[in-house]
């Protein structure tokens, strides 16, 4: 009811009465007598423990139909009526709301030893927020008037949620009697004379009975007989006792020792009253007497979780009450009550009681149905069956599992409590493939904030954690990695320059990403269709996630070269040039970092001598212009057969690495064009990208004939035109700034200028990203492996048709191979076998966008060709991650890694196995 007033932002802490007024109106409206919000709904759960005395104990799966707060039907295969909202809890277990038959209510402060008129219901706060108990799954409690008097009064049975009238189950449920030392020697009674008068003496205090065990039952009988005879001086108490006795109110007898139990049983049988006994660990010894007499026992459970007890004495039952005596008494009506000191541990304490040999069914009944029956509300609460009130608890696991916890509590079909939402998830499956050679049969994975925290047979289930229970048949594996794909490029086949990060192309996951995820591929190494001559960056992305940045696993993923069409005798030449440049760039940074470290150290040492104020004004920074053989403006002439006379013009070129780009400056043109070429030694070659109307693309070859001079031919459709050019400007595009004094005012070294094109290669040289080279022939592979090895770069080969020829070298240098999509020919088979046999790391690449969905089929094909399923799984997961250097993020199911998990109906390399659910960084991908 108050919920309406509660939905206020946490920062709105100042009085806002207008809102208060609105809330007030809402309160009034919701409290209007109509109370039309009695709930009707359908609930579907993994399992429903009914705790019912007859009928099935468990429905699996379970469906619960609730109408107007009352259970209309429960079963396994009920059809869900169209008019009811469905609460689908496929991973949860339902049990009836727990019933606490004892432990609630404070003793009244009255002095009367036989005070039947004290009503516990008067003290119950029917408006209270019982969150703590509802969160423990307790929905119904007995509230007592105390156990400190022979007749303490009358108890009540109340629910813990809902409007007051609905909470009251029984206002006068019983007559509360206490046998044992707790009720002996009640305080003496003093009668005040009202109004006082001076001529009347004040009477001395009158002692009350019982004083001992010997008199307690006699006093009880006496009180009852006296009240039945007619009201005495304690008018109200006597009337209450007489009416309770005549109405047949059950006697709730607190017993302290076996002797009290015997007395209670004898009294109940002799007076043929209904009643039950509230026991303790000592009373358990007399449980057989209760079983004989057919009198129920409510046994308060004990847990010892409050730190070390200083001295538990010699009574061993204090530590471990022997409930085995109870387990043996099949006819004893047994209910458990919550531990006195920790009522919230009711369910856990009951679970521990299973040690005694009591069956799980009996224990569940002892905290639900049986206490409800004993308290006289068994027709309304305590079991899940048609006709009962819809008071139930949603658990993450079976009720007697320690890891289970309460997710939701419903009272009369209304949500009374809900676990605070945590970013915590537990996935349980019959088989968990953690990584190559490591399989867990029956277990779970705990995920927090998108990362795997724990893997094992039994993992923690923090309260509030969501649970996905996939069942015993399910197979949980890490998501597959597409070692080279083009996801997200959307068919854009343009070359990607070395300076452009592919990570910029990543958007929020869309349909293609989703399709890929649902095919079990959770990570894609995105590369350009065609790398630039100077190497293109790649990016490693997840196929789904909450946000754009969260999708990125790493950028740059690698630096990607295609060296298949180079000089077959020196395939590694462009790579070498590029790596040399990168090395120089890296050296600048290394120097800077060393300088900075030294400077920082000096600062830390308190370099007071080098006060900034004393330092001379820094000199004008000198711009060192680094020139290269190409960059600049070239002025030239073209002459040759089709041209009537020589044409002259100017082009601007810019060299980056080994490739250059440029455009025509004179004669000025609006036509879209681009000059693209590479420089190898003094040879230039390339093409002029221009729309020629179907005549093809002009290409050119030539050489630098001296400093700032070049000559060559331009070819188009078999026609060749000679050109000659000289460089007229060198500075135009050369902007390598290197301040001569790399120190600022305070002497702090200044970082070198960032070169976007060389940054990824710096990462390569630092070992942060691998070098990805497309190459085929064995000779070329050798050259490239050597070059990479010299530069200290981690190498991954792609394609590598003859990899098996140089397998030993690859193995020695720890070079992995990404296998392209291929035909099922003999060579492919040989390669697969050898790679498998030699233990070279291999990964599978789709070379496609969302076509990567067939990755699993490719694995199946590889298996068919002789790769072991285990190695195939490894290739698609851990090995792919290792090749790309992301084994600390994905590829296995281990703590610390991203929770990229795929649930299959069977082993993924069983052709019939289906993908059931996919999690990426702990977020479920919804198909």
């Amino acid at each position, binding site marked *: 009811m108050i919920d309406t007033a509660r939905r206020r932002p946490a920062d709105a802490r100042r009085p806002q*009465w207008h809102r208060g*007024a609105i809330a007030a109106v809402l309160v009034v409206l919701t409290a209007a007598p109509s109370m039309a919000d009695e709930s009707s709904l359908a609930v579907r759960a993994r399992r429903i423990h009914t705790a019912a005395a007859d009928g099935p104990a468990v429905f699996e799966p379970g469906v619960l139909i609730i109408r107007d707060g009352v259970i209309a039907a429960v079963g396994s295969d009920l059809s869900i009526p169209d008019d009811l909202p469905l609460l689908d809890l496929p991973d949860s277990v339902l049990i009836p709301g727990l019933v606490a038959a004892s432990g609630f209510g404070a003793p009244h402060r009255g002095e009367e030893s036989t005070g039947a008129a004290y009503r516990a219901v008067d003290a119950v706060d029917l408006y209270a927020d019982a969150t703590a108990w509802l969160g423990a799954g307790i929905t119904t409690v007995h509230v007592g008037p105390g156990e400190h008097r022979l007749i303490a*009064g009358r108890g009540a049975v109340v629910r813990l949620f809902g409007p007051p009238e609905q909470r009251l189950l029984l206002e006068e449920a019983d007559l509360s009697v206490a046998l044992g030392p707790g009720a002996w020697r009640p305080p003496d009674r003093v009668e005040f004379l009202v109004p006082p008068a001076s001529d009347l003496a004040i009477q001395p205090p009158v002692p009350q009975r019982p004083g001992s065990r010997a008199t307690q039952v006699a006093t009880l009988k006496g009180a009852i007989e006296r009240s039945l005879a007619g009201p005495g001086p304690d008018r109200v108490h006597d009337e209450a006792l007489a009416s309770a006795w005549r109405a047949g109110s059950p006697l709730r007898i607190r017993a302290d020792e076996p002797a009290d139990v015997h007395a209670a049983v004898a009294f109940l049988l002799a007076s043929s009253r209904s009643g039950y006994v509230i026991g303790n660990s000592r009373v358990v010894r007399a449980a057989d007497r209760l079983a004989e007499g057919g009198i129920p026992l409510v046994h308060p459970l004990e847990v010892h979780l409050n730190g070390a007890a200083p001295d538990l004495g010699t009574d061993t039952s204090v530590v471990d009450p022997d409930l085995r005596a109870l387990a043996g008494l099949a006819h004893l009506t047994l209910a458990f009550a919550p531990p006195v000191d920790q009522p919230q541990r009711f369910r856990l304490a009951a679970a521990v009681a299973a040690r005694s040999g009591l069956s799980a069914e009996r224990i569940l009944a002892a905290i639900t149905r049986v206490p409800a029956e004993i308290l006289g509300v068994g027709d309304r609460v305590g079991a899940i069956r048609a006709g009962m009130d819809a008071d139930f608890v949603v658990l993450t696991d079976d009720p007697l599992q320690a890891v289970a916890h309460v997710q939701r509590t419903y009272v009369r079909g209304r949500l009374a409590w809900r676990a605070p939402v945590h970013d915590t998830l537990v996935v349980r499956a019959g088989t968990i493939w953690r990584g190559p050679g490591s399989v867990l049969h029956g277990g779970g994975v705990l995920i927090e904030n998108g990362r795997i925290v724990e893997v094992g047979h039994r993992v923690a289930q923090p309260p509030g954690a969501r649970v996905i229970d996939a069942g015993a048949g399910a197979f949980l594996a890490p998501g597959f990695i597409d070692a080279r794909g083009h996801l997200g490029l959307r068919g854009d086949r343009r070359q990607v320059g070395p300076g452009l990060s592919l990570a910029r192309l990543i958007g929020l996951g869309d349909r293609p990403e989703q399709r890929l995820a649902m095919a079990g591929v959770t990570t894609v190494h995105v590369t350009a269709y065609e790398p630039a001559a100077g190497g293109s960056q790649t990016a490693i992305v997840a196929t789904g996630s909450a946000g754009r940045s969260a999708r990125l696993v790493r950028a740059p993923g690698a630096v990607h070269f295609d060296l298949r069409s180079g000089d077959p005798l020196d395939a590694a030449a462009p790579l070498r040039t590029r790596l040399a440049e990168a090395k120089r760039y890296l050296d600048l940074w290394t120097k800077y970092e060393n300088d900075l470290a030294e400077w920082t150290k000096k600062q830390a040492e308190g370099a007071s001598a080098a006060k900034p104020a004393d330092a001379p004004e820094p000199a004008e920074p000198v711009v060192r212009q680094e020139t290269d053989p190409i960059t600049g403006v070239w002025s030239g002439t073209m002459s040759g057969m089709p041209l009537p006379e020589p044409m002259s013009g100017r082009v601007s070129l810019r060299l980056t690495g080994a490739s250059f780009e440029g455009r025509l400056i004179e004669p000025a043109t609006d036509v879209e064009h681009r000059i693209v070429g590479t420089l190898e030694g003094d040879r230039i070659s390339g093409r002029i990208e221009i729309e020629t109307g179907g005549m093809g693309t002009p290409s050119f070859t030539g050489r630098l004939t001296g400093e700032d001079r070049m000559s060559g031919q331009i070819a188009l459709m078999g026609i060749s035109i000679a050109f000659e050019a000289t460089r007229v400007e060198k500075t135009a595009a050369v902007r390598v700034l290197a301040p001569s004094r790399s120190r600022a005012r305070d002497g702090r070294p200044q970082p070198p200028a960032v070169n976007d094109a060389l940054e990824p290669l710096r990462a390569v040289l630092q070992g942060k990203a691998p070098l990805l080279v497309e190459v085929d022939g064995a000779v070329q592979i050798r050259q490239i492996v050597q070059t990479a090895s010299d530069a200290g770069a981690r190498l991954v080969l792609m394609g590598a048709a003859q990899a098996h020829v140089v397998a030993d070298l690859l193995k020695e240098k720890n070079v992995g191979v990404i296998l392209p999509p291929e035909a099922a020919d003999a060579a492919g088979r040989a390669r697969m076998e050898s790679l498998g046999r030699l233990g070279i790391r291999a990964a599978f690449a789709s070379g496609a966008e969302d076509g990567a969905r067939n990755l699993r089929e490719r694995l199946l094909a590889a298996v068919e060709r002789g790769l072991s399923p285990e190695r195939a799984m490894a290739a698609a997961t851990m090995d792919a991650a290792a090749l790309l250097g992301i084994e600390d993020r994905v590829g296995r199911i281990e703590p610390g890694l991203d929770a990229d998990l795929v649930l299959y109906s069977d082993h993924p390399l069983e052709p019939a196995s289906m993908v059931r659910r996919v999690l990426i960084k702990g977020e479920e991908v919804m198909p």
Partner: protein
Amino acid sequence: MSTCPPVAGRLRRLALCLVSAVLGAAGPAWAQAPAPPSKLALTGARIIPVAGDDIDDGTILIEDGLIVAVGREVSIPYDAMEVDCTGLVLMPGMIDPDSFRGLDIPNENIPVVPFLDVYDAIDPSRLYFEDALRSGITTVHVMQGPNCAISAVSRVVRPIGLSVGEMTIAPEVALKLVTSPRSGADRMEQMFRLRDAFARMRYDFDTLAETKYEEAQKKASKPVDVAPAEARRRGADLVRETDLGDPIRNLVRLSRGAIIPFFHAVTATDLRNAVRFAEEEKILDRAVFIVGTDAHRAIAELTRVRRPVVIGPALVERRVDPDTEEIVETFLPAVLHAAGIPFAIRPDPDGSLAERYLTYQAAVCVRGGVPRDEALRAITLRPAEMLGLADRLGSIEPGKRANIVALTGDPLDFSSWVEHAWIDGVHAYDRSRDHRLQRLLQAGSTGDDESGDDAPAAERTDGTAGAAPAPAAPAPGQRPGRRERIVE
């Protein structure tokens, strides 16, 4: 806490009677100044009658302490004393619906004391009465505090007069029945005490009725030939109030509707228990519930029974959500208004400065969404209705007692103050002659407020209550003990 022994109370009552008999010849002490004119006309003021629309430039004609005419066009008799109230705002004198502060001891230490009367404990010299007048309260319902299950019978008084008798407007008005737990008694025991007291009352009454019937039969020389139950029924009508013994008299009158049950029920649970008890004992039709801010939880219960409630001084419930630690605030008057429950507001004389003023409390209600006229009623007419005095008090209407307060501005403007108050036509308060206040204001303005010579205001010993406290002789060395009670 000590109790005033009722015996001593009786003696004191006797003594007071004697004193007032002697003094009575000389007329009321507060009227030792020239006797008030029998006809008085308050003219030129804006009048907020509470019952009806506001009147600008209106006139109130008072004759012999009663209002005889209100309006714009009131002809003023030639012999009436005319008071020009131009620029002032006249409203009914405010009513404090439940105050123990006029008592020398607010509570008893035995749980059930309906045989006591606050008459014995009202101290006319309490500074509270003077303060009440200063803030515009012209009627006070003096009840005991909530420390008994059933407390002494209450009394409605004016804050002026030398003796309790002189102050009294209505004696033996209400009994306070407490369902909230108090020190030493939980809810179970409180409810038991209430049931026990009523059960004993019924038993004693039945016994008395039976005796009365038998006596009547004997007198008429008829035999007693009916069953005891029938004898009790027949005898019930023969029991006169004078026959009732002290222990049960007020309870019997309560069940007969002659005394109003004021239930003290702080929390929603207490309120629910109180409503149930009132229904069980069939005393709901006159019941009033003094509630705390938690009462909004039991609004369904209140809506069902539609009985008036007394709220305040706190009007807002603040509750911290155990899960989110958000503070949830509920403004009780708005909840009550939305549910159509009439309510009166208690001031808090010991609380923060603002909450001492009922006008401030009413203004807070308006701010929280209660209409202005309802907020004004909550401090005037509503408490009069609850006390069964709406025919005499609570509004400016012909026929009602001339309890009128003149403010310098709108009552809901916190910068307005009370300039004059008339009680039964007597000019009971004049700010310009409020020497205690004037001295304090003066001291504040000269910065001379810490010296001892401005401190006469602590306690008056002359027993005069009322309008114009005479400047007492300077008492060197005496600290201005109550000073902070009246400055702003």
